């Protein structure tokens, strides 16, 4: 006969004072594990791109006393700790209550955006370009998806909850260790060469499939720059206000005026620069770009980079190589890299 301890989780075998039915305990564990996995996946995404998470925190106005990046690390730690604890079958009140608070907070955030969007208050995507409020997920989709993904498993996690029993010191230590590791990783991740892993832009990706929106509103990289589907191009994703990009304009001008690419390699093809905002008069007259700048919906560009500028070479609509640092981009453009870090 199965004991409460053996069914508290497949990992632990501690005894329990009350013995709920086997199915209730299994169901409860599965609910917690599903929620734990969802939270861990979310934490992994945030750990790989902590800058994007910090941007989100800033946009939501959640940074308060701390910097957005500090709040991002705290959030990452909480999500990892709760997620892993649930996955390891820790369904004690001191795990479930933080889980409830975390889920309530996440649903509150998407719910707030949803309500604001209904009342026409939600800020459109930060763009003054041709694609005002095009988003990857509408506020309604985000709210209902989060609600359905988080709330039912959370409810289930309370079913057949073990009471009393031995203190799960081993699992708590594992959670603490993993949480610490996740936070340290999150703090270092921005400087690690993880861009291909953390973003949708990596070698082999087909530009026609990099899209945002649905149906008639769908916008793909190929819709914006049909030339990408043919022959070879060098594409630079840019933030026109970023000094890292503006400092590169002379190199880009030289390249677009016919300079050759990386030494010893073929020319990477005509230059295509894509930005989330169209160039302002101030940008055009200050930096004098000799190349055309295509504007794209922020929701299309954001999943393609962790930090701008980022570049990629594309042949016949397929990404061949990515360049994720200024130095790599300058090298690909054939510019002397020692002049500027």
């Amino acid at each position, binding site marked *: 006969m199965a004991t409460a301890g053996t069914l508290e989780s497949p990992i632990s075998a501690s005894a329990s004072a009350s013995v709920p039915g086997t199915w209730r305990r299994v169901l409860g564990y599965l609910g917690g594990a599903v929620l734990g996995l969802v939270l861990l996946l979310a934490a992994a995404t945030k750990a790989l791109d902590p800058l994007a998470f910090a941007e989100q925190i800033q946009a939501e106005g959640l940074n308060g006393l701390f910097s957005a990046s500090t709040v991002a690390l705290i959030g990452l730690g909480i999500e990892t700790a709760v997620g892993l604890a649930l996955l390891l079958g820790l369904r004690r009140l001191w795990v479930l209550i933080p889980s409830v608070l975390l889920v309530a907070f996440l649903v509150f955030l998407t719910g707030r955006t949803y309500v604001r969007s209904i009342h026409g208050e939600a800020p459109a995507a930060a763009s003054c370009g041709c694609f*005002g409020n095009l988003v990857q997920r509408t506020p309604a989709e985000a709210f209902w998806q989060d609600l359905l993904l988080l709330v039912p498993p959370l409810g289930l996690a309370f079913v057949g909850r073990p009471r009393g029993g031995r203190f799960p010191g081993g699992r708590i230590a594992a959670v603490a260790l993993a949480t610490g590791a996740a936070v340290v990783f999150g703090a270092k991740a921005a400087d690690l060469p993880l861009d291909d892993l953390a973003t949708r832009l990596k070698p082999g990706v087909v530009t026609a499939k990099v899209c945002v929106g649905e149906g008639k509103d*769908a916008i793909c990289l190929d819709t914006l720059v049909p030339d990408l589907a043919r022959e070879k191009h060098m594409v630079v994703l840019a933030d026109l206000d970023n000094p890292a990009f503006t400092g590169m304009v002379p190199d880009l001008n030289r390249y677009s005026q016919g300079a050759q690419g990386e030494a010893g390699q073929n020319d990477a093809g005509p230059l295509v620069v894509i930005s989330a905002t169209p160039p302002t008069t101030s940008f055009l007259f200050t930096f004098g770009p000799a190349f055309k700048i295509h504007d794209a919906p922020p929701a299309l560009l954001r999943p393609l980079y962790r930090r701008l500028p980022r570049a990629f070479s594309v042949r016949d609509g397929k990404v061949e190589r990515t360049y994720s640092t200024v130095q790599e981009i300058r090298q690909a453009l054939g510019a002397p890299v020692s002049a500027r870090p």
Partner: protein
Amino acid sequence: MIRSRSLRSALFLLTFGTFVGSGFAAAGAQAGPDAVLHGFERLGDYQLVVGGKLQPAAEIYALPSGVPAFLILSSALPSPVLLSPGEGSVQTVQLMKIVKRPNGTVDLMADAALSPQGKFELVGEDVRFKTEGRTAALQPRPSLLGLKKAVDLTNYNPEYARRAKAYQPNAKSVQQLRKVTQPTRVRVYFGSWCPHCKEHVPLLLKVEEQIKGSKIQIEYYGLEKGLNDGASKKFGIHAVPTGVVYSNGKEIGRLGTADWTAPETALASLLAGK
């Protein structure tokens, strides 16, 4: 001394026009177009203000690619002005060294002498400069807003006319559109500030020209930058250009972003119920 502004404008245009019409052959025999400063295309994004007065007849050109340069021709300025973004320089060039091509582009002759006039200054979105004792500024033009006709668009921005002229619509689709029997209205929401509109709306302008006399009526509605205005919200416009198609007064579909590479084909398919 010429006192009347309109008379001066007429003389300027006459001089420029005469040179364009007959002077090029002689000038061309002396020196061809400059290797770099040729192929300037007329822009509609900016307006010229000289001495605080708007100069609606001013022609502003830019090189479509290569070296960034803007050329300004106006009767309110003693000489044409060349602005070089990046360098920040302002130079004048003799009018007789500028050649207008039949396709509307403008070249500087290789032997044109450029006279430095100092640097331009950026004040907000204004490009301010001084040339031969005059104070002038290039300013972004105010957006075209509300319900408009094709001619309003081409008058506002010559790029629309140029791109429309270059487009060849699919003949079969145009034929299909001409045969439409139901009264159909297409309202195109666009932004005069939007680069995609500049590329794609002209294609529909050409289609409109080719289906003149059919049951299809096309109109254009200019929206504000950012698409946060009442019209964008009321009609659910998330991106521009978007074409809303009405048949017998009822919306039957939309031309979305992907449809604008060949709007006549997308419209014909939509009206055929495909």
